[in-house]
């Protein structure tokens, strides 16, 4: 296979089939996306992250986490699904081990995602570990170029757009929660699945991708009552194996 000699620091392989994301057409450095492309592509998601951050702040307040902890959590955990799980488990008096276990299971999906982007990151171990922190669902999906290839700058740029929005939203939600009220009343809880749906549509290149997506959806739904939250999504990743069959 080509690229066996890839060493650390080598530029990513050129993309033969160009499937640029919307707006990436004027990428300054040829086919490779720039941080600016990532920032621009990440903007709508930053808006959603802001809204979701507000929701998290409001929930964390009602969960009795105090004013500072939710903000610090958003800054150092930076993971919507895990943070929502922790806040709601603590609110329900579920205990800290249950909260930690749920968060880890929910974030387990970042392990295969990290393997997928690994060849495209740069530098030594420490820098790679640091760059890997940019792996969040939306940025990772935006950086996906099809055929298992990823654009490093797009992922990092899109995450840099979303991080301040997520933390800022949490500040607004924690401090101004009373003025905002119940985020569900405003339909804000529908925003993230809707965004994931929009990203999914971009990924449905060809019949096999559609089949994989359908199988994953069915698998995830089927497992909901039987497994802790997070497990259905990780298990559904197994549907990707369909890609190498036949």
């Amino acid at each position, binding site marked *: 296979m080509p690229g066996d000699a890839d060493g650390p620091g080598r530029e990513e392989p050129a993309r033969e089939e160009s499937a640029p994301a919307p707006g990436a057409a004027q990428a300054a450095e040829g086919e490779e996306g720039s941080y600016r492309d990532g920032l621009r592509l990440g903007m*709508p998601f930053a*808006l*959603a992250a802001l809204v979701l951050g507000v929701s998290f702040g409001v929930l964390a307040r009602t969960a009795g986490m105090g004013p500072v902890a939710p903000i610090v*959590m958003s800054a150092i*955990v930076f993971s919507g699904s895990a943070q929502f799980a*922790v806040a709601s488990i603590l609110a329900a008096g579920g205990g*800290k081990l249950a909260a*930690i276990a749920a*968060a*880890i299971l929910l974030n387990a999906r970042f*392990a295969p*995602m*990290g*393997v*997928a982007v*690994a060849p495209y*990151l*740069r530098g030594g*171990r420490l820098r*790679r*570990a640091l760059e*890997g922190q940019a792996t969040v*669902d939306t940025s990772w*999906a935006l950086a996906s170029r099809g055929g*298992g290839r990823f654009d490093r700058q797009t992922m990092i740029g899109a995450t840099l757009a979303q991080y301040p929005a997520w933390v800022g939203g949490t500040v607004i939600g924690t401090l101004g929660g009373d003025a905002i009220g119940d985020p569900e*009343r*405003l*339909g*804000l*809880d*529908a925003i*993230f*699945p*809707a965004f*994931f*749906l*929009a990203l*999914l549509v971009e*990924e449905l290149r060809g019949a096999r*991708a559609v089949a*994989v*997506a*359908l199988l*994953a*959806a069915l*698998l995830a*739904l089927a497992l*909901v*009552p039987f*497994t802790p*939250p997070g497990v*259905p*999504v990780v298990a*559904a*990743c197994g*549907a*990707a*194996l369909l*890609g*190498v069959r036949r």
Partner: protein
Amino acid sequence: MGEVWGVIVVVAVASAAIKAAGPVVVGGRSLPPRLVATIAFLAPALLAALVVSETFSEGPRYVLDAKALGVLATGAALALRAPVLLAVTLAAVVAAVARVG
């Protein structure tokens, strides 16, 4: 209160470790072709699973509420080639209106 801080720190460290694992272990090596073929389908699988689990479940329970209507509206808008932001905003509007009604 101390319990909350403990949970936050453990979750932060664990999340960072999970995200670092792949990049550190794989390094700059290219992946075996079969693995790349699988990864090519990881995005549709993961996103489809996230859509259905966030729309139709809360913890270990199934839910079918206004949120599903909102996501359905987004699907319809995307099928009609509406811009992504418009389609997603529609999800919130439809869910909010359905909750009022």
